[in-house]
């Protein structure tokens, strides 16, 4: 059975979530949605199947301190899935104060939800006119919603100047270097940029974005990132190829985008030299055990020594999943790339840790 895609819409109160939601519902002709809202707001929602949620955030009792889930969402999705064939996809709107992590982790931590549905993408609607003020005030929620996004809808751009817009976009990139950013007003983004992103699908990291993360030259271009969730240390290391390519590319390189006035930022790391899979595993495992609460999301494409295939991984807090995917192209350099989006990240320590993963 195909898993039903779920799109999560987050954003501050007044950013334009409900307007965007209604656009999706009215313009996606022939597609039926189930909509989960946090509360019936002033703007009506034009849909047959609407369920109101309570945003009950629960800790899982599994020893993972940052493994929080939305208990209400488990119940609601469970009940929705009993209406077979009544809808094609699910939209979940969160409150302006919601932390997106428990929403995303619900799809990872609950096997039954994970078997019946798949998180397609976290879409964050940002009000161009007010976002700087929110961030300047140190709003934890505003930062987290931007940091968690796969797609950022930078809305109400008609109300700010181009110079403001460029500055705002740089700041959003500083927090989240990996998200696609779409400028618009009144939520007028082509829906194919919001829906069916497969943002948590490991395969689509490779398929959609050859340049991938943290490439400063393409900072203005839209990035697309794809992930899939699993559990900690869910790596598959059964491969045992015996190729030995000599890589003479320069050492490591890291880029920290944007300014430092937000607590949450992205750290991008690159390496042209192959990595030692065992050393990397130990490092990433320990890192996420210790700093998993700080690291909201992580993703990477890695070149391991003696492997012909690209190793792709992505994570939400402590939960990561990774696997070997398609072979490295023969005519391209194998650049390992890694990004962490998190709070108060020690960039130098991350860079040093990554550097130590180089195969000897």
């Amino acid at each position, binding site marked *: 059975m195909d898993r039903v895609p779920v799109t999560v819409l987050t954003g501050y109160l007044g950013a334009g979530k409900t307007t965007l939601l209604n656009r999706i519902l009215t313009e996606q002709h022939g597609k039926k949605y189930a909509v989960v809202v946090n509360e019936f707001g002033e703007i009506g929602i034009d849909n047959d199947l609407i369920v109101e949620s*309570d945003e*009950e955030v629960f*800790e899982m009792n*599994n020893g993972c301190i940052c493994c929080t889930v939305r*208990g209400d969402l488990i119940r609601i999705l469970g*009940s929705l899935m*009993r209406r*077979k064939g009544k809808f094609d996809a699910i939209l979940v709107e969160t409150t302006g104060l919601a932390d997106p992590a428990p929403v995303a982790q619900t799809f990872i931590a609950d*096997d039954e939800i994970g078997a019946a549905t798949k998180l397609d993408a976290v879409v964050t609607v940002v009000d161009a006119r007010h976002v700087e003020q929110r961030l300047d005030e140190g709003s934890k929620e505003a930062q987290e919603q931007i940091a968690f996004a796969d797609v950022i809808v930078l809305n109400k751009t008609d109300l700010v100047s181009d110079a403001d817009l460029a500055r705002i976009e740089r700041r959003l990139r500083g927090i989240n270097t990996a998200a696609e950013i779409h400028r618009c007003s009144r939520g007028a983004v082509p829906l194919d940029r919001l829906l069916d992103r497969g943002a948590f699908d490991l395969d689509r990291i490779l398929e959609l974005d050859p340049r991938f993360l943290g490439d400063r030259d393409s900072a203005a271009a839209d990035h697309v990132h794809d992930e899939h969730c699993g559990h900690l240390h869910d790596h598959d290391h059964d491969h045992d190829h015996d190729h030995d390519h000599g890589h003479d590319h320069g050492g490591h390189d890291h880029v920290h985008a944007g300014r430092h006035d937000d607590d949450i930022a992205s750290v991008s790391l690159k390496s042209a030299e192959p990595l030692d899979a065992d050393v990397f595993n130990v490092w990433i495992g320990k890192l996420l055990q210790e700093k998993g609460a700080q690291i909201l999301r992580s993703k990477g494409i890695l070149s391991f020594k003696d492997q012909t295939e690209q190793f792709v991984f992505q994570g939400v807090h402590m939960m990561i999943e990774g696997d070997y995917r398609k072979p490295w192209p023969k005519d391209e350099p194998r650049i390992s790339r890694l990004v962490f989006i998190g709070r108060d990240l020690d960039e130098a320590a991350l860079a040093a840790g990554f550097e130590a993963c180089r195969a000897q």
Partner: protein
Amino acid sequence: MLSEEALLAGAQTPKLAAGRQRDIPLGSAPVAFALDGGNRFLAALDDGRLRCGTIAAPDELQDVASHDGLALVVIALPGGGFLSGGEDGRAILVAPDGAVTDLVPPGRHWIGAAAASPDGKFIAIAAGKRLLLFDRGGKALGEAPPAPSTITGLVFNPKGKRIAASHYGGVTLRWAGGLAGSPLVLPWKGSHLGVTWSPDGRFVVSATQERELHGWRLEDMQDLKMTGYGAKVRALSWTADGRWLACSGGAAATLWDFAGKGPWGRPPHQFGETDGTLVAGVAAHPRLPVIAAAFEDGRVTMGRSDNEGEAPVAELGQAPAGLAWSADGATLLCPTEDGTLSLFDLRELGTVPPPGAAASRRPR
């Protein structure tokens, strides 16, 4: 009818004779199902309808009421009749004659849990965090202070004087006669999804998000942890003698022994395992030491609580949506997700194969 001799005859279970299975179309997929002491059943369907019928004439179905959305909980009432709670926030009382009363009018919060006291005196309903108490006639008796989070399960103790409510962080026990009084909280980390009370009154057992059962022995508040499930435990059933708790969620029907001190150090009895397909429903026979189990692939089988054997009932080929014995133990009912209700006439007894023999049957 089953005789006392048969009951004592050791390794025997009810037997399905040829031609003793009836399949009734329900009209749509069932989402909840219950059977009362008067051999009446109520099936809540995925179109919101509540349909009633009887074992004697199962194909004469009567639409008694309808939820706006799905029913989330359906229970049989000890004096006959049913209670249904739904996503529309409505709790509907269905009398044995099919007459309908709104116990709770439609509202914002889902009615996700309900219980009746064994003596039939009280009905408890959970609407979100609210716990509401009614008498058997549907008169409101009171409301408890709100639970810390949404109530996911309710059960009365065997004497019908206390109510246990499961929620995030544990189970809360309150007195029916003093709802507002200070409760006894049974704490345990994580989300608790349902609760049952042992027939001897000594144990409260909850099913958790982490696919475990958690128990509390009330006399000394000892914690008990029962693990090994492939899915969340949704069905719990106590055997007629009160000794065994049968559970769904595993690759075998699992029976924990609550005699004496409880299940500590005693591996559970298990039956019915084949290829790893999980148990979706369990129902203990009302008098014999026999448990029926329905697997996700539609296989229905029975096992004895003493592990002295098991007997296949049917291969329905559809995921079950419930499982229940008639009060006289003569009929087993299993609604399936394709919208069929299968009724098995099991009043005859048969000898069953020795333990383990069934596992070699039909490798797949």
